[in-house]
């Protein structure tokens, strides 16, 4: 298996696992403003590898989320994609060695993700969602996502390190291995 195929498989598996955990466990434990593991993985990927990997990871995570939630496809694709794009755009400006980089990035990403989802649902008239309720959920979820950012980033880092060990000649994305 090539490095790219292995990398894509592992990262897709990680996103899928995070999404499954979100849907099956996390959202049941914390019904109001649950943390979003898939989003945190997207943030980590965008921070490590930049705009395009972040956007693709966001699209995949959003698509899986749309599939699982039962809503129209595209709502969460857009929301996760925008979050991945935002973080990917600002990643080159950040100090990649900062220990709380991903945790700090998870907060605006969460707020943008919630706002995007609310905006899409409201604009398309899919469901009546109160803006204040959405804001409250985002305010609860953001710090939780920041807490979960480090373990999620460690998982992404472990995949990067694995690829780097097996294919040392390849530079993965921007090649950040913490």
């Amino acid at each position, binding site marked *: 298996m090539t490095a790219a195929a292995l990398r894509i498989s592992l990262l897709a598996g990680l996103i899928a696992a995070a999404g499954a955990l979100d849907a099956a466990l996390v959202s049941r434990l914390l019904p109001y403003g649950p943390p979003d593991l898939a989003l945190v993985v997207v943030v980590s990927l965008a921070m490590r590898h930049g705009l*395009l990997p972040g956007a693709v990871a966001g699209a995949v995570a959003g698509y899986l989320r749309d*599939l699982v939630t039962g809503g129209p496809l*595209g709502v969460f694709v857009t929301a996760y994609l925008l979050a991945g794009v935002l973080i990917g755009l600002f990643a080159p400006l950040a100090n990649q060695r900062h220990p709380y980089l991903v945790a700090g990035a998870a907060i605006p990403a969460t707020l943008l993700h919630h706002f995007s989802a609310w905006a899409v649902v409201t604009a398309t008239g899919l469901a009546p969602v109160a803006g204040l309720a959405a804001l409250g959920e985002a305010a609860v979820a953001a710090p939780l996502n920041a807490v979960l950012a480090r373990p999620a980033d460690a998982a992404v880092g472990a995949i990067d390190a694995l690829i780097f060990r097996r294919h040392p000649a390849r530079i993965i994305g921007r090649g950040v291995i913490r």
Partner: protein
Amino acid sequence: MRIGLVAILLAAALALLTMQVRLPDRREVGPIGSLILSWIGPVHSALSSAGNSASSLWRLYREIGKLRAENTRLREEVERLVRESALLREQAQATQRLEALLEFRKQLPGRVLGARVVGRDATRWFDVILVDRGERDGVRRNAPVVSTGGVVGRVLHAGAATSQVLLITDPRSAAGVLLQQSREAGVVQGQGQSLLRLKYISRGQEIVVGEAVVTSGLSSVFPRGLPVGSVESVVREQGAAYQEALVRPAASLNRLEEVLILLDGGPRR
């Protein structure tokens, strides 16, 4: 290049959304989505089962915590109730004793003072008890002391607030008595044991076991007619001028808790 790809992705997402929203059910996952869902389904089920198990374990853990706290509370409650129950039993028994004492008091002559037994000689050489009444309550030396059963003894020493009472079982105790049926006079003396010795009963007089022995009033201490005890056995020695008997005291001297002190002691005239 990258920006262009990202823009295409965004446009595709919005196009997908627009297309989905226009559908009658506002959702059509397509063959790829169905395939992915068929993979995700079992994973969700497994995770959900694990979550249910974890949730059950957590509930069980919390339940155990609650039960432990409740168990501790109930144990404390039981201990408190046991203490209360013992106290109430004690009070009920004390009430019964005091009622009997009060009834007995009506039969006694002169002024009578109730006293509580607060001490007992620990050596067992002397049969002496300590009561919580003394000279300032009017108690004087040699005042007779009785309980519901009968004669207990006499005041050996009256202190200011407490008094020592010499029990009739002490070897230093002696009292003039009568056999209640035969009216034969004698003297009971303590032996340092649970039984008293009845002396100086003429040999010609038949002593019936079980016969009651009461004070004769001939001594300077006890008034007449107080129950002393009952004949337990008769002792006849060859060649002796008198016969003797062993008398079981009427009062339960080992279980004394309250006594009555006859302030106007001495024989009734």
